[in-house]
């Protein structure tokens, strides 16, 4: 076995330079982590890997991905080691085509077509109109419709694409509340996605771009408040 050369200054994962020295390996993190033990996962091991310069090994491992980034370890750590930040950084450093599952594809789709699932504008607008008609005519909310690109609305509402895609009636929960509150709200015809998967894939640049588009729509429509879907 080759000896490991520790290079503290060049570590890609050393987002908080003090961790290696301050982690006591006390196990407070591991004790409160529901995924400790799976695949030999232990937050302390991940911290040690980063501290010892095993950056690439950690980036290539399953640890940063079976971790749900819940932050309970970091919250509980008596030494303030930034475990959550390190795990997300390891996700960032994974090559994009090796990000597991659909989350990077969703980010790419969102950048290209304005929402994670690639729902076309015409389909979205027609769906909103169709659901609005149901509420207006059959469900006891006469006069209801879903306002789109309404200038000067009080609240601009973003949407979780899973709803128009697979659970469209769930959008009516908020719509009925808006109806009861007589709220002046609107959503946008494009780039209405409110779920930013860059948060999970570790892609800060895309997150910024997607968020920037929402801000741009808010400014153009002169809306006062922004509501995210959760």
């Amino acid at each position, binding site marked *: 076995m080759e000896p490991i050369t520790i290079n503290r200054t060049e570590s890609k994962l050393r987002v908080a330079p003090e961790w290696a020295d301050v982690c006591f390996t006390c196990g407070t993190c591991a004790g409160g982590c529901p995924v400790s033990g799976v695949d030999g996962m232990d937050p302390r091991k991940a911290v040690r890997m980063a501290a010892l310069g095993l950056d690439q090994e950690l980036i290539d491992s399953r640890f940063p991905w079976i971790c749900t980034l819940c932050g309970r370890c970091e919250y509980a750590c008596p030494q303030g080691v930034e475990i959550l930040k390190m795990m997300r950084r390891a996700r960032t450093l994974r090559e994009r085509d090796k990000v597991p599952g659909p989350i990077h594809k969703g980010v790419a789709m969102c950048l290209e077509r304005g929402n994670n699932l690639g729902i076309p504008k015409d389909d979205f607008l027609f769906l909103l109109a169709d659901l609005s008609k149901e509420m207006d005519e059959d469900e006891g909310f006469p006069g209801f419709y879903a306002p789109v690109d309404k200038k000067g609305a009080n609240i601009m509402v973003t949407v979780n694409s899973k709803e128009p895609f697979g659970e469209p009636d*769930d959008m009516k929960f908020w719509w009925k509340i808006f109806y009861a509150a007589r709220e002046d709200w609107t959503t946008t015809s494009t780039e209405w996605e409110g779920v930013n998967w860059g948060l999970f894939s570790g892609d800060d640049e895309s997150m910024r771009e997607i968020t920037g588009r929402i801000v741009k729509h808010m400014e153009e429509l002169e809306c006062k408040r922004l*509501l995210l879907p959760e």
Partner: protein
Amino acid sequence: MISVHDLLKEYIETGRIKVDKSIHEELTTIHDPCNYGRKSDKAFGHAFYEEPRWVTQQCCENFVEMHPNRANNFCCGAGGGAWAMPYEAERIYYGRVKAKQIMDTGAKMVIAPCHNCRDQIMKSLTKEFGMDIETKYLWELVCDSLVVEPWTEEEIKKANELRDAQYERDDIDLEDQEW
């Protein structure tokens, strides 16, 4: 930017919407999502712990806490994109802790103020761990508790005009298309 918690609380507090708590008699508990708790606290200096509890208790007669809760609450198991990632066995195993927390309360309804958490609890944990429980979004609970003050003829007429103008602008004809 406004969070769902702030807006729901504002609507109820200022009387813009009315809710009837007698609709939900069953024992109800609430799940603290990591993103609205620990992570919001760290990123924005405020964790949404009390707002969803207050809103829930405006809509429910009987409330019970999970333990541990707030900053020490356990993740549902589907955070960080895990709901969409190909680690299903790990996600369900992770969720065993959440399932036990929920079952220990004896509640019949659990409120989730996060899409991911709701999907994990409702579509996965309920089945995997045989939980006898209903899961609702926080805003779904509010919606189901609404007492709607009917719109006047004038309000309806005005909204219809705005709708017609919007549909004309966007070229939407519901009669014309098959869905």
